[in-house]
């Protein structure tokens, strides 16, 4: 059948070309490189407590930060979409700042804020809360860079949320809480999941923001991307590649799982 709109072959071809050059080749090179590493060395790297701690912090911290971002991001997006207040447009524009700032800049800024002598840190320190050079600091830095993903994903979904749905729920006898829990949240679930995924993916690979605030203490606040850099500086290319491959595999696994969950909501888009 002749299509009215031409270009399927052309667009698919270009898509595959770009994808191959920009995504597939580097990843393939990594896998090829890792494939040359002796098996026992991979096992040794993977059972190294320092490596495991770093991977745990990268993935665990990313999941925690993305989860918190999803909650706060929902609040921010709700306020921006539903209410008209002075400064709303400015706030809306500033949401994207973490996208635009060089990660090192935001990392240094966060460190000076939360450091023992920082504006916020000096008040937390006497309470026994250490943000800088602790895992808490890592999570805060990851939240900072992940928030825009959640807000920007939720905004259009909230704008599409018909106020009639809430009125319908209210007229059927549902209170505010039941309406929120049974109508609004489930309707937003696909967008929430997408926002979480983007924030999570970004946080897993984050490097620049964290290296300043975390202090990179092995076994404590060292993240996997930093450990890869450490290995590279020690000319341990095989070790670096091994960690990278594990990160790739875990990330792929998590993203695929979320994607599957997402498609199970596909009825919502109908």
């Amino acid at each position, binding site marked *: 059948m002749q299509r009215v709109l031409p270009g399927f072959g052309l667009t698919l071809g270009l898509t595959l070309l770009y994808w191959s050059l920009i995504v597939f080749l580097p990843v393939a090179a990594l896998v090829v490189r890792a494939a040359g590493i002796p098996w026992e060395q991979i096992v040794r790297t993977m059972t190294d407590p320092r490596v495991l701690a770093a991977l745990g912090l990268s993935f665990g911290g990313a999941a925690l930060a993305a989860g918190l971002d999803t909650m706060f991001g929902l609040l921010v997006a709700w306020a921006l979409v539903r209410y008209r207040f002075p400064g709303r447009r400015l706030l809306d524009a500033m949401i994207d700042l973490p996208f635009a700032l060089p990660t090192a800049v935001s990392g240094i800024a966060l460190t000076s804020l939360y450091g023992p002598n920082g504006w916020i840190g000096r008040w937390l320190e006497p309470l026994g809360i250490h943000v800088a050079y602790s895992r808490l600091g890592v999570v805060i830095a990851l939240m900072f860079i992940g928030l825009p993903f959640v807000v920007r994903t939720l905004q259009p979904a909230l704008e599409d949320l018909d106020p009639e*749905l809430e009125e319908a729920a209210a*007229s*059927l*006898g549902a209170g505010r809480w039941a309406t929120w829990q049974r109508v609004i949240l489930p309707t937003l679930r696909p967008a929430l999941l997408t926002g979480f995924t983007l924030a999570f993916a970004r946080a897993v690979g984050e490097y620049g923001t964290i290296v300043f605030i975390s202090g990179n203490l092995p076994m404590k606040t060292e993240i996997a991307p930093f450990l890869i850099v450490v290995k590279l500086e020690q000319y341990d290319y095989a070790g670096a590649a091994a960690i990278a491959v594990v990160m790739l595999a875990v990330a792929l696994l998590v993203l695929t799982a979320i994607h599957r969950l997402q498609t199970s909501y596909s009825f919502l888009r*109908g």
Partner: protein
Amino acid sequence: MSIEVRHMSKTFGRFRVLRDVSLRVETGELVALLGPSGSGKTTLLRIIAGLEQPDAGSGPILFHDEDVADQRVGDRRVGFVFQHYALFRHMTVFENVAFGLRVRPRRLRPSPRQIREKVEQLLHLVQLDFLADRYPHQLSGGQRQRVALARALAMEPKVLLLDEPFGSLDAKVRQELRGWLRRLHDEIRLTSVFVTHDQEEALELADRVVVMNEGRIEQIGSPDEVFHQPKTEFVISFLGQVNRFHGRLERGKVHFASLQWETPEWEQAEACPAHVFIRPHDLQVAASSNGQPALSACVQHIHSAGPKVRLELATDGGQKLLAEITQEQYRTEPLTVGSRVFLTPQNIKVFPYPSDST
């Protein structure tokens, strides 16, 4: 359960949507709020439901003579059907209908079995049993409409309010659903109010029609009354097409165009200008003059596809007129575009107006 509102006013910003409206709907009635957009009909419906607050100083909202003005929408037990249905898209048809039962406080909530029975019974009532497991986006417009209705009925409402219930359906489905809703109402006899801008829908479906314009009620009456005895110029112009003439009322007669007409009902009125309204089917069309006084006009268009043949005419003075004749007459009379015809009114409606306005 009767509904009554007294002296309702509503202002949005500087725009007065409702101006001192009072209305009573008797138990078991099916009433239409009919008017153009911006006439305040939807706002009145939403105030009755509790989705909108009337201005301070408005009178009470009575359900069965009990004031519910201070009750929240959820406590008023109104079934509200939204124009775009507002179905919960992440829930199946079954879950949508069950929603009103599931969100009840625990002590009032029916058991899961009772809920199942109730929902199945309602889906049967709206003839959608076979779609219980589908999601809203898998349904046609007419089916969604009926799901919305079943969902509103599930919470056993005291009154049913429908906002433009057939507004977003195509003509044929609209016709079918209209008849179906009328039968459903005859069956369950729930006091119902629906909003529409379609005069045909209001006249065909409702026991009584409330014609609204610019935030006021122009006339309340049975479909027959509002159509045949319109009380205001707005009502006669809004309910179907009509020809309007400028005339003068004097000693029980109205003079308009080249004609005069006895108007005994205005016998006592002072001489004054008046508007004369004639429905297209009340203009008798003849191809030749029979000597009686008549309006002379020229045929400009003929629409013959339909139960009646509609003629667009222009008088010598340039005024556009509409007339309707039977298919039978159309076939026997030599009428073509450009022919000259003679029009004799069969029935007219006169509304005098003070000479300082138009």
